[in-house]
């Protein structure tokens, strides 16, 4: 009987070996994946086990951490708090014990909790000295005054809208506002009150969708503001070489391949107008024909250089803006004046203004300036990075000149700031079936100081459902907000 016994001994050994292999698979190979699974409650427990690091704007934290009351079963020690939550929500996102984390709170979670490998030394030191682990800080590029101007401006308007302001020379995001907004403090815990507050904010129960980050995640038809891109394409492709050259623009103009005439808003001097005049009066016929003449491919190529068709990671992901391909001439004409399928995020249009202001160089937009440990030692710093060159410096200056005319004596006079050169473009984009819904009011602009530097470029969009339809125009609704934001940036530099 001993031979089968030896085999049984081997069989039992194999059973144990199988278990050992499986355990190595679970606890070694798969360990990190299981450990970091967002559904794994331990992730949440770790996130709130120590005071969370802060998100910092201009040296002041806009977040905080409070110790949870010892209430029964709560296994989470600290709770996130926010200062002026609704204003900063598009920047911070939220970190809720019950509902997880998003945006900066989620992307930089490792730094904020102190678990990031880059904080390993600090963590080990804390462990040895017996100190409680401390989260690091996320220092943002935002400008508190500009953000306030943007948010207050949208709030005063009352409708839905968003503002993005960039520093053209670096790509730093100075303001990122979305309205209506929400207070991430209201559901930071995991009590029934938090759940009720969360429920009220969901789109299902709140048609205004306050938790949507309109500045990055919503695409709107850019309307006439897109004519800046079309003008850039005309200059870059050599169709016209100066702002004051007469264009080949008949009026009325019938779109190629159709019997439809492209209409201008009102009776404006657009026949064979120069590009400067066409931009000043916002001539649909001139820019529609430029787009149609250049063709889909060239227009798409230029739009792509400005950042269309790709998501941006600032590091929060923004939606990709759209300029379609495979369009016929009339569709290209409509798209070139920001209608048809063309759609852009407020961030995208701020990038357009910023590239023009920065002499044709588009910088990659970003909002995290640096990461630092709890003792304020820098862990990582973001360096400005060039994304593309949609314009040559010469053409950029021609375009700046044209945009300046828009603000000085065109549709954008509401954005004038004394002592500062401002260039801009208004837009009023129609949407809805048969244009039945209220249009979007757009304004994009940049400011240039007497020393030639450009501290800010901004894009504002307002969807105003309550306004009188005729009253809506980029110049009337959006330009004043843009002006305040630019002023705030300029004043904070002084």
């Amino acid at each position: 009987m001993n031979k089968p016994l030896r085999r049984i001994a081997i069989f039992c050994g194999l059973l144990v070996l199988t278990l050992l292999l499986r355990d190595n698979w679970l606890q070694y190979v798969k360990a990190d994946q299981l450990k970091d699974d967002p559904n794994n409650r331990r992730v949440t427990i770790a996130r709130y086990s120590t005071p969370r690091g802060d998100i910092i704007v201009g040296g002041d934290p806009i977040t905080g951490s409070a110790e949870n009351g010892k209430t029964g079963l709560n296994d989470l020690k600290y709770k996130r708090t926010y200062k002026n939550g609704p204003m900063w929500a598009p920047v911070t996102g939220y970190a809720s014990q019950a509902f997880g984390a998003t945006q900066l709170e989620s992307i930089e979670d490792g730094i904020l909790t102190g678990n990031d490998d880059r904080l390993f030394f600090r963590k080990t030191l804390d462990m040895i000295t017996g100190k409680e682990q401390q989260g690091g800080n996320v220092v943002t590029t935002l400008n508190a005054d500009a953000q306030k101007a943007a948010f207050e401006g949208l709030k005063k308007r009352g409708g839905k809208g968003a503002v993005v302001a960039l520093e053209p020379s670096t790509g730093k995001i100075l303001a990122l506002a979305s309205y209506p907004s929400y207070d991430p403090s209201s559901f930071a815990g995991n009590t029934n009150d938090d759940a009720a507050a969360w429920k009220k904010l969901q789109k299902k129960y709140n048609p205004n969708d306050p938790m949507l980050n309109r500045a990055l995640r919503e695409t709107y038809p850019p309307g006439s503001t897109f004519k800046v891109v079309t003008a850039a394409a005309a200059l870059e492709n050599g169709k016209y070489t100066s702002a004051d050259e007469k264009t080949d623009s008949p009026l009325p103009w019938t779109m190629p391949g159709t019997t439809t005439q492209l209409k201008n808003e009102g009776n404006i001097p657009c026949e064979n107008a120069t590009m400067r005049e066409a931009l000043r009066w916002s001539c649909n016929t001139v820019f529609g024909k430029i787009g149609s003449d250049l063709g889909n491919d060239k227009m798409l190529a230029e739009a792509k250089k400005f950042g269309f068709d790709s998501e941006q990671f600032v590091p929060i992901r923004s939606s990709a803006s759209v300029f379609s391909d495979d369009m016929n001439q009339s569709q290209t004409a409509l798209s070139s004046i920001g209608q048809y399928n063309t759609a852009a995020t407020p961030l995208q249009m701020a990038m357009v203004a910023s590239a023009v202001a920065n002499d044709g160089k588009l910088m990659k937009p970003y909002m995290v300036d640096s990461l630092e440990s709890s003792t304020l030692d820098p862990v990582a710093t973001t360096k400005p990075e060039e994304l593309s060159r949609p314009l040559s410096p010469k053409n950029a200056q021609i375009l700046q000149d044209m945009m300046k005319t828009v603000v000085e004596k065109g549709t954008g006079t509401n954005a004038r700031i004394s002592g500062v050169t401002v260039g801009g473009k208004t837009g009023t984009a129609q949407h809805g079936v048969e244009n039945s819904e209220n249009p979007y009011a757009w304004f994009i602009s940049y400011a240039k100081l007497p020393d030639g530097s450009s501290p800010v470029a901004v894009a504002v969009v307002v969807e105003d459902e309550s306004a009188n339809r005729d009253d809506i125009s980029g110049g009337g609704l959006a330009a004043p907000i843009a002006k305040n934001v630019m002023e705030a940036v300029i004043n904070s530099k002084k």
Partner: protein
Amino acid sequence: MSSTTNSPTHHTSTIGAIGAPSRRNTELALLVFAVVIPVFAYANVGLALDDQVPAGLLSYGLGLGLLAGVAHLAVRKFAPYADPLLLPLATLLNGLGLVCIWRLDQSKLLQSLPNFVTAAPRQLLYTALGIALFVVVLIFLKDHRVLQRYTYISMFSALVLLILPLVPGLGANIYGAKIWINIPGLGSLQPGEFAKIVLAVFFAGYLMVKRDALALASRRFMGLYLPRGRDLGPILVVWAISILILVFETDLGTSLLFFGMFVIMLYVATERTSWIVFGLLMSAAGAVGVASIEPHVKSRVQSWLDPMREYTLSRQGQLGHSEQLQQALWAFGSGGTLGSGWGQGHSDLIRFAANSDFILATFGEELGLAGIMAILLIYGLIVERGVRTALAARDPFGKLLAVGLSGAFALQVFVVAGGVMGLIPLTGMTMPFVAYGGSSVLANWALIGILIRISDTARRPAPTPAGNPDAEMTQVVRPS
């Protein structure tokens, strides 16, 4: 030098009298470790949870030491030649299990559950009873061959034990598996754990008598000796009973355990590989057949195939789904290589049965891969010492009984650990010695008692004829 003095075609070696030194002092030394390690673990849990050494440390240490000491003295007195590893290994597992159960008793989350009981004191009581049973086995079972007389009584009692949970009014359906019985005033009992031992006695007795008949082959087919049709009878009966257990008690583990044990013992008794092939085919057919029909078993299989889906459904509040397996997998993963340390894990998220069926997940999270590997190797050692006992036993009944018990122990460890680690579908059994549960602790201490008895008989020096000095040193001449 020896090559010049020895004959080139024969070599001569001298061996002592059959049998080894008693090894009781080795056992005692190992037992000291088996008591001290859990005591340190206990202190560690207290320090991690409350920053202080737990108040009960001294009494716990003394209690465990006393129990181990009594068991050791019983072995020294009644089974002096027994295997020295079995008792310390079982004591170590039992002690660590107690610490882990106490640690889970401290969880606020588990305390908030509706049927929470402070389990550690009860488990300590079960351990005391288990060791008492172990001592009783050693005292009253002077020779394991006595059990041979009770072959058919064992069969009858095993069947009764297995049927008990199905008796109306006595059986208890706990979360789908009907493997418990309620004894008023005493709590619930898992008769299957005891049936394991009684069935091993029956199989050993039966196979010892019938093994020659069963080993007869009639035809050779594809390299296998096929048994005669009428000899298929016993395996078919055991198979049918296993399937019935699976269908009526809905417990895959118990069913697999009994059938597997029978196949192992049948193979050892007959030395016919064909039985293994038959056994595997039949168990596969039975398991697949039942799993596709019986809803409870079916849901266990689905949960095994996709634990995350099960977790999501359970979170959505759908009945009949359990997040336990996914929680256990997260516990293992979060433990990583070295674990979070005693008291610092969150395995209480498993909630129900965290200290019984799923206790291995707590070890996995708090002691890590290293700890689990050590524990699995301890189980492996117990099994291999059991098989070693079977090898050393001199009578076929002892061989069969020892291999049956060790094989069943190995299968149980595999089925439970494999289930908790997501290797095979979960079953309703518990890890021997570490998991909370009176039946399991009592039955496994009895099992170790029987193995120690067999190993004592196996290693005991053969009685020497008096007055023959040559018997001390026997010359053995073998052809080389």
